[in-house]
């Protein structure tokens, strides 16, 4: 038999000026199951709380209804008081008779009646409340960071500095990402490699960081604090422990005409190669698709020459199993392929290049040692046209969003070109100059005012070759759409930044949501920008949306702070307001029929299936299983369940139906 206590607060005069609190308390005392009722001037004060505690002890209360302000205000206060008196704090509910009654209605019989109805509704709720215990799950204090660009490196370093183990997984043979390909960085024009490579080395040498390059995430299961990951370590064909990185193999490899990915096709590499001289780890890999040994079984020069015998043609992919408490995704972005813009002639004209290719031309370690030369004939271009928004903000042919970084790097390119070719003229076709950021607008102004970049507001319609020149045809919208033609020696397309190849598959493996552009989705666009909807998985950098280096690094440190915050606890305490699938005695086991509707609608991928077996191990039924570590208690599955087999603690079907009945039957 329920023994519920009802405590009606006057809140000074905030409630009692319009609600007859004494009468509400008296009427409540006559409700079935109510063992005690009282009213008091300030329930939240010390004497008020003591009154509740004493009543719990004296009347052996099995539930408490505090009829006062909003539960959003004082529910924690009263629940704590109940817990101190030995009553499970989930057996305390509040009737909101201030914000939703006394403050919004006049002093009237109807207002007091409403207050009483709200109390009665909560009495019914408490009567059907279950005592709950917070859910505790252990936390494995290892973080896995996927992606070894600047964002991933930053996360790894920050988490490692917090004293936790980090596994940094990178798909390519070296960490460094796109930033290692850049020549200079805006808005300071400092050398990209000069600021990045020390951090790469630091990550490689940090005692808390394990690098897994040339590796990819294979699968994941588990939940926050307890992820199980399988990582595929692709066969490098080089024993990393034996290799000293002397580089003899790469100089002697006879297969020298493979377009280098790192140089964006502007230079060649060998079949056994390190992507770039500062690679970390500085250990080569064999590109099996292009290696003569793997294609014909002949050659084997590298194997014969290697002084430490590190070459291993028989090496196989290896699957490593890893346990982790948190995962950070930092897989970055890609440059959109330019074939969707045939009128720009990319691929047809060798001197139409992408912004990333221009970075390699301008880089002191690039194919031209930093001299700006045309890929076709090596001449120094006298006029270079930079086309901003090549694919961005173009719902018809490209992508609808703004790639964000192009305005700034185009201004940087124009400056770098002018600094290297003093007599040259940079032209920039643009839609808008979006230079919002610290020292960004000053930077673009400098490109125009000091370095003489000629900015033309308008879009380029096509590019064609005439007499060895590239004629760029566009419009100047500031001159009323007047057609413009510029005979250029080289054209640089600021191609759109898009999500990485394979990001959709990765998101599905990790149960992380992604947007229509296949960028990973944050849990809340403003308040949870580095968290995903899957607890324990965080985001850093441009895998979420186009981001520049400072933003990526800031997001990375944000994600690292979240990981360190999570790792500050040995066990994780979670609100027990979670959904549960009912279980009954055999042969029914559960009313759940395993239709799987709840699995498809759960926003947190917290539901999977569970097989019920008999004594001989035969599967007799398959039902839904809710992981309390992942469930956030929204209850969507409860209302979707066709057989009413799922219920939500604290908001059970019985409770809400009883609330409706109690609320309406006031006589």
């Amino acid at each position: 038999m329920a023994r519920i206590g009802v405590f009606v607060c006057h809140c000074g005069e905030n409630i009692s000026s319009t609600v007859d609190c004494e009468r509400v308390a008296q009427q409540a005392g006559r409700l079935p199951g109510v063992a005690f009722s009282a009213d008091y001037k300030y329930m939240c004060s010390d004497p008020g709380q003591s009154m509740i505690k004493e009543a719990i002890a004296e009347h052996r209360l099995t539930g408490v209804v505090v009829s006062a302000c909003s539960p959003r205000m004082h529910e924690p206060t009263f629940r704590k008081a109940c817990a101190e008196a030995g009553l499970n704090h989930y057996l305390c509910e509040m009737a909101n008779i201030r914000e939703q009654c006394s403050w919004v209605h006049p002093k009237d019989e109807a207002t007091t009646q409403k207050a009483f109805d709200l109390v009665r509704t909560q009495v019914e709720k408490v009567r059907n409340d279950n005592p709950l215990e917070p859910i505790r799950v252990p936390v494995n204090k290892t973080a896995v960071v996927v992606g070894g660009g600047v964002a991933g490196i930053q996360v790894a370093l920050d988490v490692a500095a917090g004293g936790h183990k980090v596994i940094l997984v990178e798909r390519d043979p070296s960490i460094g990402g796109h930033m290692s390909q850049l020549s200079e960085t805006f808005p300071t024009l400092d050398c990209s490699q000069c600021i990045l490579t020390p951090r790469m080395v630091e990550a490689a040498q940090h005692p808390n960081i394990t690098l897994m390059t040339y590796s990819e995430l294979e699968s994941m299961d588990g939940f926050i604090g307890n992820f199980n990951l399988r990582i595929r370590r692709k066969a490098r064909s080089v024993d990393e422990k034996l290799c000293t990185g002397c580089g003899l193999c790469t100089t002697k490899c006879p297969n020298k005409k493979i377009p280098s990915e790192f140089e964006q096709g502007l230079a060649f590499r060998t079949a056994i190669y390190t992507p770039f001289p500062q690679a970390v780890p500085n250990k080569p890999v064999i590109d099996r698709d292009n290696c003569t040994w793997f294609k014909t079984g002949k050659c084997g020069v590298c194997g014969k020459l290697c002084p430490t015998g590190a070459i291993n043609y028989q090496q196989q992919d290896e699957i490593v199993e890893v346990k982790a408490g948190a995962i950070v995704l930092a897989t970055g972005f890609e440059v959109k392929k330019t074939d969707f813009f045939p009128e720009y002639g990319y691929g047809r004209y060798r001197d139409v290049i992408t912004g990333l290719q221009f970075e390699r031309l301008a880089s002191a370690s690039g194919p031209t040692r930093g001299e700006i030369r045309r890929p076709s004939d090596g001449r120094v271009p006298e006029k270079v046209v930079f086309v901003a928004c090549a694919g961005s903000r173009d719902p018809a042919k490209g992508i609808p969003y703004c790639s964000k970084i192009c305005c700034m790097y185009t201004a940087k390119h124009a400056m770098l070109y002018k600094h290297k070719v003093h007599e040259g003229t940079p032209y920039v076709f643009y839609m808008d100059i979006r230079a919002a950021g610290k020292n960004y607008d000053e930077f673009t102004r400098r490109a125009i005012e000091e370095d003489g970049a000629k900015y033309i507001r308008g879009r380029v319609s096509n590019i064609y070759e005439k007499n060895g020149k590239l004629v760029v045809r566009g419009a100047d919208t500031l001159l009323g759409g007047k057609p413009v033609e510029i005979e250029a020696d080289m054209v640089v397309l600021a191609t759109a930044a898009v999500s990485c190849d394979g990001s959709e598959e990765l998101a599905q493996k990790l149960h992380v949501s992604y947007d229509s552009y296949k960028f990973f989705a944050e849990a809340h666009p403003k308040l949870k920008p580095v968290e995903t909807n899957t607890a324990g998985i965080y985001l850093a950098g441009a895998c979420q949306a186009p981001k520049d280096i400072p933003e990526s690094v800031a997001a990375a440190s944000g994600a690292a702070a979240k990981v360190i915050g999570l790792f500050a606890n040995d066990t994780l305490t979670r609100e027990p307001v979670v959904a549960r699938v009912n279980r009954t005695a055999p042969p029914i086991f559960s009313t759940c029929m395993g239709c799987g509707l709840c699995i498809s609608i759960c926003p947190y991928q917290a539901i999977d299936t569970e097989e019920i077996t008999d004594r001989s191990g035969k599967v007799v039924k398959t039902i839904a299983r809710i992981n309390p570590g992942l469930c956030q208690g929204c209850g969507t599955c409860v209302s979707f369940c066709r057989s009413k087999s799922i219920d939500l603690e604290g908001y059970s079907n019985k409770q809400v139906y009883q609330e409706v009945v109690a609320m309406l039957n006031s006589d």
Partner: protein
Amino acid sequence: MDFEPKIVAFVCNWCTYAGADLTGTSRIKYAPNVKMIRFPCTGRIDFMLLMKAFANGADGMIVSGCHPNDCHYTSGNFHARRRWTVFRSLLEFMGVDTERIAFTWVSAAEGAKWADVVNSTVEKVRALGPCEAYKNADYE
């Protein structure tokens, strides 16, 4: 005696319940005919509850949660909206005037909007008169 409609509001904890609290802290007045039941999310609202409320004498209802894309649980309000469109046609089939139910979004910042939603729903239902069709119906 004048007809005073009984209205039940089914609201989510994160947006509309907080918005209604703001109505209170802003001291904006509205009709006392409405009583609220709090849910974690509108996605939790089983529309059979609305039938239960009609059977127990409710004359009108409000279902309100977060605006699209503002859901605390990402997508619960979208699920609620879908289910509402299906449920509405069932109500029409059963002969319940769907004007009796206001399906709306009120954010935690829209205290004044909550008062408007309540007052307009009360007026609308008062004009429609008591909902007798399903009173005391036995659904079991």
